[in-house]
């Protein structure tokens, strides 16, 4: 057992940290989120040059073969900088999905283009009106004339605004289990409604009406790959939250030291001090659980599910407590758009709401208590 990082991991962390400090200041981010696209191809390419996209891709697929811990390191920095480029949606998630849900041949060319940053692939999974259900069966694909035609409506597709290709979960004909399809986002029968989200990331609701689709992997056999990919995403969100919470806590402590009322720093008030300590506890407990989840990604499915859901449940609660507390301790300035505090708060709120909130994951963890 050890908690130390390797030389390479320390270098990776350092590179990402420098990228955030040099190229992703709060002002840089302002410019990006106010642009028409809402994200920056330049910064996306920088991340690709650093190797962030190739990192999660296996070596035999031409990637760097990074581990869950490597991904955790990247996501923590992404959380620190509130990076809006869809690294989770258009790199980690599709890579995880393709690694287990597509054959070697199917994924070869695609992974190469993801690694270089050239192609963005998003995962269209959530059927409208199903909340966080992981087994999605409303979208349907019909098989005719040697090909598949896909119909259905998918919502809140992360990076769905800018993706070139879409990975879509759907059931074929009368199947009860999902299959995985690849659809170019400009194909006939694909209609995208793109929007900025509360935290300035971008997404889309996407309607498919008999869109021509390519089946990946085996028909009716995609669920385990989907579960794996969503667990990878949840572990990544935990790490992102730790980065964001750490930064937000630091900012809050600074504010408590400098803001004066009644002739002294407000941080001299015990009510505020103890709230700040409770925030720290949430951050450190979250850090521990993000590590646990990162390490568990290669475990067998039941154990992985239990560990990842434990982490996401705890981190989800922490996101809420740390976010709300930071706003409260900042007072009026905390509820303005001009200060980064509200931006961290919004991202943390949405991390909890993405791929299962604290209650949803608590329930999933609870299922494991029934089984054991």
């Amino acid at each position, binding site marked *: *057992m050890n*908690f130390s990082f390797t030389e390479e991991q320390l270098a990776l962390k350092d590179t990402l940290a420098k990228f955030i400090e040099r190229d992703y200041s709060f002002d840089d981010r302002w410019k990006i989120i106010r642009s028409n696209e809402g994200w920056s191809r330049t910064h996306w390419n920088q991340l690709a040059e650093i190797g962030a996209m190739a990192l999660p891709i296996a070596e035999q697929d031409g990637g760097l073969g990074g581990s869950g811990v490597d991904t955790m390191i990247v996501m923590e920095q992404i959380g620190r900088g509130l990076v809006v480029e869809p690294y989770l949606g258009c790199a980690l998630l599709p890579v995880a999905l393709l690694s287990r849900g597509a054959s070697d041949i199917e994924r070869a060319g695609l992974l190469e283009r993801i690694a270089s940053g050239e192609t963005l692939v998003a995962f269209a999974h959530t059927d409208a009106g199903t909340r966080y259900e992981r087994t999605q069966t409303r979208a349907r694909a019909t098989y005719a004339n040697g090909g598949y035609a896909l119909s259905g409506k998918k919502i809140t597709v992360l990076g769905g605004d800018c993706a070139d290709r879409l990975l879509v979960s759907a059931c074929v004909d009368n199947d009860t289990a999902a299959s995985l399809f690849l659809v170019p986002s400009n194909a006939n029968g694909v209609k995208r409604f793109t929007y900025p989200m509360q935290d300035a990331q971008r997404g889309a609701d996407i309607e498919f009406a008999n869109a021509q689709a390519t089946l990946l992997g085996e028909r009716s056999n995609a669920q385990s790959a989907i579960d794996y990919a969503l667990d990878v995403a949840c572990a990544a969100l935990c790490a992102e939250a730790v980065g964001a919470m750490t930064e937000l806590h630091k900012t809050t402590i600074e504010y408590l030291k400098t803001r004066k009322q009644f002739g002294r720093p407000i941080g*001299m008030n015990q009510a505020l001090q*103890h709230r700040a*300590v409770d925030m720290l*506890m949430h951050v450190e407990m*979250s850090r521990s659980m993000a590590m646990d989840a990162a390490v568990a990604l290669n475990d067998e499915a039941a154990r992985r599910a239990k560990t990842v859901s434990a982490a996401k449940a705890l981190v989800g609660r922490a996101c809420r407590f740390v976010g709300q507390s930071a706003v409260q301790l900042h007072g009026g300035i905390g509820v303005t758009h001009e200060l980064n505090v509200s931006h961290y708060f919004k991202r943390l709120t949405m991390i909890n709401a993405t791929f299962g909130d604290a209650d949803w994951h*608590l329930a999933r*963890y609870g299922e494991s*208590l029934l089984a054991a």
Partner: protein
Amino acid sequence: MDLRYTDEQLNFARDVRDFTKQNLDPRVARKVLEGARLNREDYLGWHRALHKKGWIGVGWPKAFGGTGWDATYQHIFDEVTADEGAPQLIPFGLRMVAPVIMAFGDKTQQDFYLPKILSGEHWWCQGYSEPGSGSDLASLKTKAERVGEHYIVNGQKTWTTLGQFADWIFCLVRTSGEGRPQEGISFLLIDMNTPGITVRPIIMLDQEHEVNEVWFDNVKVPVENLVGEENKGWTYAKFLLSHERTGIAGVGRCKRIVKRLHHVAKQSTSNGKPLIEDIRFRDRLAQVGIELRALEITLLRVLDAEREKRAPGPEASLLKIKGSEIQQTLTELTMIAAGPAALPYVREGDGTSQDAEWLSDEAYRHASGTYFNFRKTTIYGGSNEIQRNIITQMVLGL
């Protein structure tokens, strides 16, 4: 980063489990698993078995007869023995006064006291708190006046845990009224059989005798019982408290309780279904299980930092607060699981009094008593509010 144990560590865990199964009195294990109160012999039986094996000096360096185990081994030992129902090792001798004697005592003191702590011949108790000095410990008033080759000690200590069993007490006493309150304190070792010492029980809310008042009326203590220098006791006192940091979280014990509670919730029924299927109960159990996992990894992070001689980060300061909160949650959850079986008052005492065998639901026999008893955990060892003050100053720099 790797959160798994090495093969060597897993082998050690197996050895500890085998030894515990073979040497722990099953009657004592049962009491521990049920949450019953233990008597002096229950504790000492396990203590002597470990001493015979050479495993009692957990966390002690080999030079003083300790195991020399690193922090991870100590954690494994704690976890496995707790899981088997071994009594907690009473910390006052082994983990509190012993490190102080090792670090600040002279050779004569080390040669006399340390072997007797290991063998169990000396049971120690702690003389820190006083009626007017709780969180503000440095305001203590118990006085030790130097007269020839003796100190004459007068005053009162309180909350002395298991003082009724103790052979010796280590005390913070005031030897000077000069300077800041912290500057006039000395660290004194006192034989509990010395004339002038009176131990009076304080009966706690669970109607049990666990803590005491200890009165000192012109108690003559030889000067050679002073540890280190006169008026430097505050430094030793703080050293002692920092030594207790990782043990206080009680992770091993909590893991055992979660496991048992999980088991009990599957066996007992509520509205005709296993209690574990009650979603409100299951959510609570899940929540505390998750927090305990987070605490355990946080503890392992601290131990890892110590092993690598890195200074532990802010995570170290949180262990007492989080650990005590989780312990309390677990006692509360056990009481909730018991439902109406939590109502009876079960007298425990020393085993000679009325037994609890008449209670049908043995899993819950001690549920409410333990719940009431465990309110202490967020108060002792520096209340959780004091801990928050400490973190505010030492970690947040506010």
